[in-house]
C-alpha cells in the first residue's frame, strides 16, 4: 500500500510538474502589436539636406562648442554659462557669476571707504546699473525681432520646461543641425506640391513605345520669386523625333509650371537648383 500510495503521489507530482512545465514553458508568441509606423524613406542626400540648415542663421556658431565641450568636459559650469549669456540674456541673472561682483563690491567699499567714500560706491553702483542695462536692451531688441527660423520655437509653449529638463547647459540647444529644430528645410509638402504641379502639366507624347528610352532629366535654375531663371537644361541625350517630343514635353511642363509659388523664399538656397527626372515608365507600361 505504501509503495502504491507513494507511487501514486509520485506519479501525481510528476504529472503536476509536467503540466506546469507545459503551461509555463510553452512557446508564447512574441507580443508584437502591429503598430503602423509612418516611415518616410529618404536618401542620405535628402537627409543631409533636411538637416543642413541655413548658413546665415546665427545659432550655427554657438551650438558646436556647446555640444562638443559638453561631451569633452564633464564640468560644464563656466563656459556654457558664458555662452548662454551671449545668446539668451534672460538666463544671465541666474547663471552669471553675479555673486562675485557683489562680493568685490562689498570688499571694495571696505577698503576704499577709508580713502574715498563716495566715489567707489557710486562707481560700483554705476557699473552695476550699467551692466544690466545694455543687456536688457539687447533682450528687448532680440525678442521682438522676427526670425522665421524660430517660428517653431515661438509656437512651442513648452520652451521653459525644456530648459528645465535639459538643464542649463543645453537650454541653448542648437536648433540648426537637428532635424527637429527650426532648421530651414524644404518641407515634404512643398516638394509634393512642386511634384504635383509638374505632374499635372507634363503631357508626355502618347506614342511612346519603349518608355525607358525617354526618361528625361532636366536641370532648372529658379529665381527667388519662383520663376525660371535660365532655359531649363536637358541632361539626357537621345535622338529621333519621339525623343525630341518627349524632351519638349518635359521642358514645356517646367515652363508652364512657373512661377513656383509653393516654394518659400526662405528656403531659396534649397530649391534654386532643381533636377527633375521625367520618367514615363509607369505611364506606358503595357
Amino acid at each position, binding site marked *: 500500500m505504501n509503495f502504491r500510495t507513494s507511487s501514486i503521489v509520485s506519479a501525481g507530482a510528476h504529472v503536476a510538474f509536467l503540466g506546469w512545465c507545459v503551461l509555463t514553458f510553452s512557446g508564447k508568441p512574441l507580443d508584437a502589436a502591429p503598430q503602423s509606423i509612418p516611415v518616410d524613406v529618404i536618401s542620405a*542626400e535628402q537627409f*543631409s*539636406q533636411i538637416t*543642413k540648415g541655413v548658413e546665415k542663421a546665427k545659432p550655427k556658431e554657438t551650438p558646436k562648442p556647446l555640444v562638443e565641450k559638453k561631451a569633452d568636459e564633464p564640468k560644464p559650469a563656466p563656459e556654457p554659462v558664458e555662452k548662454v549669456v551671449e545668446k539668451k540674456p534672460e538666463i544671465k541673472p541666474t547663471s552669471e557669476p553675479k555673486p562675485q561682483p557683489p562680493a568685490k563690491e562689498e570688499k571694495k567699499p571696505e577698503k576704499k571707504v577709508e580713502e574715498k567714500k563716495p566715489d567707489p560706491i557710486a562707481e560700483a553702483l554705476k557699473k552695476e546699473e550699467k551692466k544690466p542695462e545694455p543687456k536688457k536692451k539687447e533682450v528687448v531688441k532680440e525678442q521682438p525681432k522676427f526670425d522665421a527660423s524660430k517660428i517653431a520655437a515661438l509656437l512651442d509653449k513648452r520652451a521653459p520646461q525644456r530648459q528645465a529638463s535639459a538643464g542649463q547647459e543645453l537650454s541653448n540647444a542648437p536648433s540648426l543641425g537637428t532635424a527637429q529644430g527650426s532648421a530651414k528645410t*524644404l518641407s515634404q509638402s512643398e*516638394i509634393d506640391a*512642386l*511634384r504635383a504641379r*509638374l*505632374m*499635372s*502639366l*507634363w*503631357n*508626355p*507624347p*502618347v*506614342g*511612346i*513605345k519603349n518608355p525607358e528610352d525617354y526618361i528625361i532629366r532636366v*536641370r532648372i535654375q529658379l529665381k527667388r520669386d519662383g520663376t525660371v531663371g535660365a*532655359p531649363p*537644361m536637358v541632361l539626357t541625350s537621345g535622338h*529621333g*523625333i*519621339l*525623343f*525630341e*517630343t*518627349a524632351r*519638349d*514635353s518635359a*521642358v*514645356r*511642363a517646367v*515652363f*508652364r509650371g512657373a512661377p513656383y509659388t509653393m516654394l518659400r523664399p526662405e528656403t531659396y*538656397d*534649397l*530649391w534654386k*537648383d*532643381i*533636377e*527633375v*527626372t*521625367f*520618367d*514615363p*515608365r*509607369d*505611364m506606358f507600361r*503595357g
Partner: protein
Amino acid sequence: MVLIADMKTVIDLSSFNRRRVLLAGASLGAGLGFASLGGIRRAAAVLRLDVTQGNVQPMPVAITDFGPGSAGEAEMARNVSGIISANLKRCGLFAPIDPAAFIEKIVNSDAVPRFPDWRAINAQALVTGRLTRQGDGRLKAEFRLWDVFAGQQLAGQQYFTTPENWRRVAHIISDAIYERLTGEKGYFDSRIVFVDETGPKDRRVKRLAIMDQDSANLRYLTRGQDLVLTPRFNPSTQEITYMSYGQGDPRVLLLNIETGQSEVVGNFPGMTFAPRFSPDGQRVIMSLQQGGSSNLFVMDLRSRRTTRLTDTAAIDTSPSYSPNGQQICFESDRGGRQQIYVMGAGGGAAQRISFGEGSYSTPVWSPRGDFIAFTRQAGGKFGIGIMKPDGSGERVLTEGFHNEGPTFAPNGRVLMFFRDLGAGPSLYTIDVTGRNEQKVPTPSFASDPAWSPLLA
C-alpha cells in the same frame, strides 16, 4: 491625284533655322561651361525630383489664319488653316483655340511671334503660315510651328503643288504638326475606302466609295450592279482588293483606283473571300471555300502562284499580316467557336491567342505592330477591341448592338469600324485608348471601311 511628283518638300533654310543653329551652338557652349562648373559644385546643392506620372490631355494649339500672298488666295488660305484645325481637333490630342481669343494678329508669318501674347491665352504651340501663288501658277504653302513656352520654332517647311491640291497640302501640314508634337507619324494625308449603301433594306445598292479621311472628295468606284464586300488597301500602292458577288461565285478582285481597271485574283474552283494584301503589296492572302471548310491561300501577284497555308476541316478566314510580313493572324473555328490564331507567314502550327468570353473574328494587325484589333461577339453584343499579338492586354474599346470590321489608321493610333444601330450602318472612329469616339460623316449608310496608307 497626279501631284505626287509635283509636290516637294523644301527644308526651310531661312534666317530662323540659321538662328536655331546658332542658338543650338550657344546652348551647347553654355552646356559645356555649365558641365565644367558642375564638377566644382557640390552635388548636394541640387534638389532632385522624380516625376513619374504625367497628365495626358489635349494640347491647346493656336492655329492662325494663313496669310494670303494676294487677295485671290485669301479664302483658300483661310480654308487651309480651317482644315488643319479640324484635323488636329478630330484626332483628340489637340485642342485648337478659338481664333476670337487671339491677342496678336499675325501679319508676317516670317516674324517671330510675341510669345507672351500666346502664353496669355494658354497656347502651347502656335501655327503660322502663308499661301502664295507662284509665277508658274503653282501654289506655295509654308508653315511654321512654334513652341510658345520655350519661345522657339519647332518646325518650318514649305510645299509646292497645283492649286487644286490645296486640301492635300493642308493635310500634309497637319501631319507635319502632328508628328512634331506627338513624336508619331500623322494619318491625315490618307483616304478611306468603304461600302456605300443606299436604297431600302431589302434591296440595298452597295457601291465601293472612296473619300479623304475627313470625308471630303468622295467618289464612287463601282456602279452598284454587283454586291461588294470587304475592300482592303494595298499598303504600298493606290490599289484595293475586295470581294464581289458578280455572276456565279463570289470572287476576289483587284482594282486600281487611278485607272479604274479591275481583275479577278486567281482562278479557284470555289468561292474566294476575305482578301488582304501583304505589307509589301506583292501578295494577296485570302480564304478559299471548298465543301464545308475554308482554308487560307496566298497568291503572289507577279508570278500568280498560289500557296496553301492551312489545311483543316474548319473555317479559317480573315487573315491579316503582321507589319513585318513574318506572321499572320486569322480567325478559325477549329477549336469550336471562332477564335483568333497566329501563325508564321509560311503556314505551319497556329497558336490561339484569344481566350475571352464569346467568339472573336475579323482580326487586323496594327501597322505599328503592337496590337491586333478584333470584333468580339459575346452576350448578344458586338464589341471592337484590341489585344497584343501574344493575346495579352485584351481591351474592348466599344461595345453595343452591332459593331464590326475594325481598320487601323496608318499610324496605328486610331481605329475605324462600322456600327449598325438598326436602321443602317455608319462609320465611326475611336482611339486605341478607347477615347474620342466620333462618327464619320458619309452621304448615306456606310460599312466595311478600310484605311489607306499615307499617300505621300
